[in-house]
């Protein structure tokens, strides 16, 4: 069964491209433009990995991921891996993000990105 990856980014160009890349490489994807939508989404959707942008309108990516993680922990007693992707964000927020998962700077090389995704998914399984 293919792994389902949730991509959170407010920029449609990024979600479409990243989702396209992931699908081409055997993943299924869900996408969301902001934190609250993503939280709503995970309530009734199974996900194996989150790829989240840090700078999001309203709730930032780190906060959104925290809430999702807590939700999934409470509901399914599972921890979901996360990979943050950022173009530019506050160093303090970055440091906080790195406590939750890997941090990759945009724009990244596909091979590099996929390696990280694969290793994160494998660790999970």
């Amino acid at each position, binding site marked *: 069964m293919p792994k389902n990856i949730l991509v959170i980014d407010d920029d449609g*160009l990024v979600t479409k491209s990243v989702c396209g890349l992931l699908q081409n490489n055997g993943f299924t994807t869900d996408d969301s433009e902001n934190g609250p939508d993503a939280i709503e989404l995970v309530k009734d959707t199974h996900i194996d990995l989150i790829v989240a942008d840090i700078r999001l309108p309203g709730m930032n990516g780190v906060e959104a991921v925290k809430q999702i993680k807590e939700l999934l922990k409470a509901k399914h007693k599972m921890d979901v891996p996360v990979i943050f*992707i*950022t173009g*530019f964000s506050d160093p303090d927020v970055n440091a906080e993000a790195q406590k939750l998962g890997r941090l990759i700077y945009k*724009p990244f*090389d*596909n091979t590099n990105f996929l390696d990280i995704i694969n290793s994160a998914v494998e660790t999970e399984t």
Partner: protein
Amino acid sequence: MFNQLLQSSNFYFSPYAIPVMLVGILIFLIGSFVLRQNFRSPVNFSFFCVCLSNGIWLFTVSFVYLSRFTETANFIYRYFTFFGVAAIMPSLLFFISSWIGSLSRRKKFIIANFVISLIFYVLAVTTDKMIAPDRMRAYFWGYYPVYLPLSIPFLVFFLIQVLLSVGELYSGYKKELAPLKKTQKKIILIASLIGFTAPIDFLPKLINLPWLYPCGYISMFIYILLVAYAIVRYRLMNITLTITRTGIFVAVYMLVLGLPFLLLTMGKSWLMQFLGVNWWVGPLVLLTVLATAGPFIYIYLQKRAESILLREQLRYRETLRQAAREMARIHKLKKLLNLIVHIVTRTVVITHSAIYLFNEKSHKFILEASRNLKKPQITALDEENSLIRWLKDYKEPLVHEDLRRKCEEEANPLFKALESQLRLLNAEVVVPGFLRDSLIGILILGKKRSQKLFNAEDLNTFALLANQAALAVENAAIYENIEEQVRQRTEELMQVQKQLIQAEKLATVGTLAGGVAHEINNPLTAVLTNVQMLLTDAASLDKDSKESLELIEEATKRCRTIVQKLMAYAKKPTREQAVSQVNLYEVADKTIAFLEFQVAQDNIILELEAKEKEYAVMGNSNEMEQVLTNLVLNSRDAIKQVKRSGRIKISLLKNNNKVRLEVSDNGCGIPKEVINKIFDPFFTTKDVGKGTGLGLSICHSIIEKHKGTISVQSILGKGATFIIEIPGLVIEAAYAKKHSRN
């Protein structure tokens, strides 16, 4: 014979005798006073002889006038008065020779004069051929002797002596070149000419004028007064002025006392016609009126006379006083000093002038302004110089001529030193300028072009001018200092302002860069992801499409690099500056990796020199990177200033529990004047836009935070080395371990 002198019945009161007696006593006292001033000086001693002989003459002759009988009068005159009279001229010649300085040559001549005079005296006492021993002439003022034929040789001898002394004085005066001495001789000559009118006493007998009161004692008194003054205080005396003042004084008091006296003696019968027995009221009223008016008349006449006589001096003194007032308004020191020397030289009409001002840095008096200096002038006077010390102690002007005279009189090493100082300074007068009791400058004056002497009033005016000038100099210095400070501060402020604007711009660029990075990174992600996706399916692509896609990928990656650099530039410091173990080797290595490429573009080699790979300190690696980056970029700029290529070396070594990190370059080096300022905030030698002046200051504060030190050594033109020393961690860790065990 002598018994008759002790019997008061032999005398009666005569008003005519009183002034003569008083003058006699006064002259004796003046002589004693002058002698007391300097016992050893032949001038003072010979002058005392002159006074003594004149004193004897006048004091005793007053008793002749007071005598009731011929015998007493004749006895006193022949034994005492004539002794004084005979001694006058030899004493005078003795005095003149001492004064002129011909005493050693004239010794025999003077002794001979005394001996001849003594012979005449003995003749007068022992024979009856010179002064009639048994009779006297009786005048209204008293008895007067009858001179017999033998007195004619004495008179001739006396006159010859008078002529000789006048001749001697005149030739001495003519020959004298030194202005001061010339003035002294002029005083004595004029005084002598007045004094020699004293033999007027002979007139009543020679040409039978019984009404003529023998007033020779008055001219003798003037003579003595003038000469005494000249000896004691001659140095700055204005002879014309002194004579005028004395003349006016004598004239006024002759009038005040003389008119009532004449009225008393000659107008008795005329007054009695009007006032009867109370006729004496007339002279008394006249005396009261004249005595009251006398001082006013004297002051008025003196002022008038002085304004005519001293017109020139009053003019320049007024000019100088005015100049002194104007000075306070000049705020440029150099201009002020030049003005002072200019005004002084022009208005006083002197050969040259110069000003030395105290310099606080060098503790010397430096020549700051001069006018008409012909000879080379000393440019600086030490604070411990004898002249400066003297001026500080005595606070009054020094006159070269005066010092020269003092040196001639006595061998005082201080005067000798001062005299040579003034000679070296080409100074006729040195005037000190004081400001609140401290000597801030000295004014040097040359000779008056008229060859006249500076007198006391001149010096007072100069002292006033110098003190006013001192105040003005201080004013100007303060003003210039303030101006300079305002200029400096304004410049600094403008510089800081520029830098603030620059810093503001940079901050804006930083914020912008962050925003731009974020905005651009998303589309770049889309481009790169998709291009790379397409390229993974390379088999389906034709050769051209593949090449195009590869170009797009490359271009996108280049864009990514640009944005990453921008982001690094705008990188904000983390809120929590974590302190942890930092390996400076890694920091250096990372910095080199980061900057290597950048400096290589300027043909600069960046190298690391270290014996090991572990240089641990406690600190923040980001901050240490920042310090190192700053130092390396500064070194690059220093090299670029002077060379096309260069070398920057980062070296690490352990030194006494400390890690020592050095960044050295072979660039332009740091000038000595700025080396102390380079760690100051906003200090920069770079152009605006190239440096904020904050780099090294930030480095300094970071290193301080790391309990370390940063210093710099530089040879201008050869390069600079920044040295950082931070306590090494090994020791601290060992120390911590030891304590935890305890």
